[in-house]
């Protein structure tokens, strides 16, 4: 059975993101990963909950249609 899909997922603008890691502990399904070169949002893991969007100090995260 395919996983229940969400209407929106979070995406990160890598030109704006400072890789501070603030969003990681906010993400309930742990779909955000901080790798050495970039912040990565796993579009399959993201449940579209929006919890990471407003707290980003530089506004690097946004929701887009899944």
């Amino acid at each position, binding site marked *: 059975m395919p996983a229940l899909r969400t209407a929106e997922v979070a995406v990160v603008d890598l030109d704006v993101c*400072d890789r*501070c*890691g*603030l*969003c*990681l*502990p*906010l*993400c*309930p399904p*742990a779909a955000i990963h*901080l*790798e*050495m070169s970039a912040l990565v949002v796993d579009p399959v893991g993201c449940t579209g909950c929006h*919890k990471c969007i*407003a*707290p*980003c*100090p*530089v*506004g690097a995260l946004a929701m887009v249609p899944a």
Partner: protein
Amino acid sequence: MPDVDILIVGAGPAGAIAAREARRAAPGLDVLVLERDRAVGAPVRCAEGVGDAGLREFANPDGAPWVSRHITKVIFLAPDDTEVKVAERDVGWILDRTRFDAFLAAEAAAEGAELLLGTEATGMSRAPDGRWVVTVRGPHGHDVYRARVVIGADGVETMVGRWAGLDTRVPARDMESCAQYVVQGIDFDPDAIYLQFGDRIAPGGYAWVFPKGPDIANVGLGLVALHAGGRTARQYLDSWIARRYPRGARTGYTVGGVIVHTTIKQTYTDGVLVAGDAAHMINPLSGGGIVNAMKAGRLAGHTAATAVCAGNTSADRLAAYHTAWMDLLGDDHLKYYRIKQALERLDDAFFNGLARTLNAIPPEKRTLGRIFAHALVKHPQLIPVAARFFV
């Protein structure tokens, strides 16, 4: 697969002190510290302020090259810019974190701990014999280590805790979004730290000026995004600096999150300890975490080392770390968190009024203790706050 006794993820204050203390407690153990960045202490994601007494438990700041400034005063700014000066002799220090973290890492190395730079942990799982298998990625590609105890000192974004099954998630209301510039060529008292509160300045948090020298300072703020009306921390900070320091030259910036919560419910499991920011061991009132991280690192390093020596790294044994931390500071943070919640309900008019009340006290008598006492008399609304603090 290389074997180590204790593997520490993160070479900040928690990780470096954990490594130093583990080797001091048991010099024969193999202690390995992984640091994701290519240099310890950089980039700086910190306002760099520490209290005097806490710092001295770990290092002597007098004349140290890793200190930027000795601080002897605190200046509170009400939302309407009313200044309240509090003179205390030894308030604390503004560190040079790049040098300070390197100093701590060098101390750990001098005790015999090994440090790997540019190396990040990418995952961990338990081997059948109970040890943890940690996969890492570094300058020489992928590698795998096997450790008897893993200490997660990996900061706000902690992955070690999650990999070990501990709950390190943070509700959005307990995450402060911070932005900070290094600003040069501005006018302020270089012996004082400045803290300003206000719904339009830093909703749910405060703005700060932490001097690094006579005309250079860390100028930043932290806010709770839920109260920020869709504007980012950096936008709030740009407005604040434009108003207070329009002629300052901004020569650097950083952003980050400060978890203003209480210690996670469980900081240990079989073969794993989590310390510092990773375990939410931050003073939820001040947002300060450096000394807390070092105190937790000391407990974690000692607990891990003695557990390995005893041949028992089970959760039952490591639970002593959690108990010791809660007795030392964790229980205090629960009280501070309740104060923070009470303060959040007070508005700008309250703080403006309080500032005027406090300024009626002679400056030489304006200690933090007296301020609190006078605040209670003049502002009975604060009594519930005090009751929460002392109960």
